[in-house]
């Protein structure tokens, strides 16, 4: 299967010199499908692409030939009028049929793929094998809710091979869910239940991005889909379910403990939930801002703009508006605040410690980083 697909792709590129000269792959490319849905979408594109070549060649060839053969060689030549033909019924019927045939050649596989890839799956048809995730678009980040209190932001974990059904919603304006390697877009619209489903063929980190104008930091509204083997996925899920309310627990490491206190003092958890609790131990209701639970398991920070290295996390906390212009996170330290560096470092250390002691940490990070 895999080999055949690769063979087909290289064959496609070999036939087409303009495309073959360049590499159009990449973590966000439509031409690098990693699942059956994206594969079917790419196949249809390539099919129409092949069909377009004879059309373009025909049109350009006729124009080029006419320009060479039928050009007026001189003013005198132009004055000798050509035969004043008004038309030719047979010819015109013939070239009405050419587009008809082409259109049929495109339409048949289109309709077939359309029903195979875009049919809505009713909730009653969900199977136990399906992974159902509720995705909500906010200005300007994605929330992924797995149920049972497992809520993440900007990073969606899925198991390889299983069908993933994403139920789409929007909290404010329109957004669009797009992971080119796995599936085409489906818009997130307030008051409208939309759905997209796909699966991944192999473990990997796939890039996603909002594709519907939502103003402000729209260009930075990115996310990742992390596909891992079944057991790694289960470990990740379990780590979430088991996460204790670390926001209430005194930490051993003094820097991490300082960070834990600062998160409460600086007001971070006025918006961000950590393990579902406020600092005083009361549970948080609905969260309209990214959940920071198990933050230490994140691959990226700032809506997947940056890798989650300590430096990047610190920069994001310190200068949110420089990293992601237009976003809603307040800048908490003035430029000359003498405590800024120490406080940012403590908060960073605390956040990166979240979830690190769980079994999922090594498995998830090791597996997925290896792929890209």
């Amino acid at each position, binding site marked *: 299967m895999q080999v055949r697909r690769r063979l087909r792709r290289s064959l496609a590129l070999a036939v087409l010199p303009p495309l073959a000269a360049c590499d*159009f792959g*990449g973590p*966000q490319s*439509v031409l690098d499908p990693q699942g059956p849905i994206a594969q079917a*979408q*790419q196949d*249809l594109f390539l099919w*129409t692409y092949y069909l*377009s070549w004879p059309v*373009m060649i025909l049109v*350009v060839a006729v*124009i080029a030939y*006419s*320009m060479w053969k*039928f*050009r*007026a060689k001189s003013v005198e030549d*132009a004055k000798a009028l*050509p*035969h*004043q*033909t*008004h*038309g*030719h019924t047979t010819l*015109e019927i013939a070239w*009405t049929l*050419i*587009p008809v045939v*082409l*259109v049929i050649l495109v339409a048949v596989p*289109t*309709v077939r*793929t*359309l029903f195979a890839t*875009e*049919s*809505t799956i009713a909730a009653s048809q969900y199977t136990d094998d399906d992974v159902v995730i509720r995705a909500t678009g906010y200005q300007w980040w994605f929330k992924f809710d797995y149920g049972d209190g497992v809520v993440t932001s900007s990073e969606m974990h899925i198991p390889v091979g299983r069908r993933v059904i994403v139920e*789409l919603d929007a909290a*404010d*304006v*329109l957004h*669009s869910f797009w992971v*080119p390697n796995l599936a*085409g*877009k489906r*818009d997130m*619209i*307030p*008051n409208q239940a939309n759905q997209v489903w796909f699966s991944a063929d192999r473990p990997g980190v796939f890039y996603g991005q*909002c*594709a519907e*104008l939502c*103003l*402000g*930091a*729209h*260009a930075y509204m990115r996310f990742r889909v992390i596909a891992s083997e079944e057991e790694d996925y289960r470990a990740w899920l379990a780590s979430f379910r088991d996460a204790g309310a670390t926001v209430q627990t005194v930490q051993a490491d003094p820097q991490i403990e300082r960070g834990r206190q600062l998160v409460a003092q600086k007001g971070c958890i006025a918006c961000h939930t950590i393990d579902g609790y406020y600092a005083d131990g009361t549970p948080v209701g609905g969260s309209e801002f990214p959940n920071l639970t198990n933050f230490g398991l994140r691959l990226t920070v700032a809506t997947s703009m940056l890798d989650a290295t300590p430096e990047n996390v610190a920069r994001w906390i310190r200068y949110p508006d420089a990293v992601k*212009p*237009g976003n809603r996170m307040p800048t908490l330290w003035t430029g000359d605040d003498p405590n800024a560096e120490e406080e940012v470092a403590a908060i960073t250390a605390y956040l990166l410690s979240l979830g690190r002691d769980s079994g999922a940490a090594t498995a998830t990070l090791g597996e997925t980083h290896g792929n890209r």
Partner: protein
Amino acid sequence: MAIGKVGGADYEPHGAGGDALLQRPAGYAGIASWLTTVDHKRLGILYILTSFMFMGFASIEAFLIRLQLLSPNNTLLSPDVYNQMFTMHGVTMVFLAIMPLGIGFANYMVPLQIGARDLAFPRLNAFGYWAYLAGGLFLYTSFFLGGAPDVGWFAYAPLTSLSNNPGLGTDFYMIGLFVGGIGTLVTAMNLIVTIVNMRAPGMTMMRVPVFTWLMLVTSFLIIFAFPPLTIALFQVIMDRSFGTLFYVPEAGAMPILWQHLFWIFGHPEVYIIILPAFGVISEIIPTFSRKPLFGYPVIILSGIFIGFMGFAVWTHHMFTTGLGPVVNTAFALTSFVIGIPTGVKVFNWLGTMWGGKIVFTTSMLYAVAFLVTFTLGGVTGIMLAVPPFDAQAQDSYFVVAHFHFVMGGGALLSFFAALFYWFPKMTGRMISERLGKISFWLLVPGFYVIFFPQHFLGLMGMPRRTQTYVEGIGLEIWNQVSTFGTFIMGAGMLLLAFAVLSAFRNGRPAGNDPWDGRTLEWSTTSPPPYYDFDRQPVVNDRDAHWVQKYPESVHGERVPESASLPYDAGGIHIPGASWYPFLAAVAMLPMSYGLLYNNWWVLGISLLGIVLATYGWALEGVGGKHIHIDHGGADHGRHREETDA
């Protein structure tokens, strides 16, 4: 044939009656004569010049967009400013530049092509132009009054709701398009009445020049497409100014309604832009191939079919909104079907060139560039009509590339062809062919350098309407190439502007028929006299002017009947100039600001002004004079005038 030497100082109309509120300006000079003109030729020139002015603004916006995208994480423009730039670029090109260009050429050429003296309602025509200008200027003042619209040219709800977008930009968009839309609508009605009723004797519908025919189709599209837009605009104006809840999701609204209303306008709008371009191409290719249009009836019928089907494909702009596979199948099929008449048109244009004697003027070069570019855009259009692929390409740079190939490479290149083709008729002077060709070889290759790589960017996952992109996913190189292209195309456009502007003063005299044209506009002088034709043209074949020049090439031995008749005893009626259309349109400016700032006094007084101006307009009557052109005799070329009773 006598050509009346009239115009300028010769022009001595009577004034308005003593009871008129406003003196009707006389004469053909001075600013007042332009503000009050009802002459379709002057209004056509105003339309074309205004369109190019707005196109200049839009080009600056486009240039800034490309500069911002030169490198990843560039900070030349803030997200906010960038959003304003692409919104205004789109709105300007669609509503203020390309569409009015088609209408401008139609204004000038339709009456000439059908042998009429003017449009059916000359004052309404003036009103249409001034309303368009008022809407456009109103939109552009937004830059100085708190920021331009930043919601995209499609302004999807609920981005436009007061809570999501408290600034005035959205109000500028809604009110500006509403005012401009009034102008477009009345002009469309005017064109329909003109083309249906005012054709020269003998010009049956199947002898009407293709440009005029397709303007007729376009006008019907405008009439049916603009009302849904107007309704949608008004809903949002009501939401924002009066607290209704059409598009407020918090109150349970379904924002998808806006998309349906917008695209049931927006897709026909695409054909409103491209059908006049098809018309232009169908005039230019036969003229410079020195052959009749191949398959005239098929070109006309396919144009009508495209116009009709244009109303049945709107949700292909909404394939990713989750309408389900049945709806997507239906609209994919109707979209494919539109590819058929469009393909037939291209083949017919090729058939026209085949076996001709092709003269490569600048105009013809642009027409050929149109053929290639438009076909490419059509081919990617079919790809995008495939919903599963559209799910990937929608809202990516692939779409940006596609519609720039059909709108820019299609409509705009054909209007550049039209400019070179009809400029000699409109001014009596030729645009330098040398400068024209140099500009062509900068502009068209530059266009390809800008837009062709955008297909690649889309396939590599770059969404449109994002002011920047991240490093490391391969988007840098093609963005740089694309930005580089703007310099080439920009140089071409500047050279083109220079060539046109200098031709106004220094162009070689054109003569009446510099291209050996086929249609009636080439039978009168360049520029035509204010009364257009000094004898009533009579049409006895499709290429009415050509058949007079080369009867043997069309009819063999038969010699066609007379090509013109003297006007009857009433002479040629020239309606008087009028202040009222101008005043009614200008009053819409304070009306717009009144609505914008929710200042009901200003709004009310302006509405009263519009009503009064309309009354004045209705009561003053057509006015004007009748002129009689004397053919032959000692008075050859003179004319006498008599005033209207």
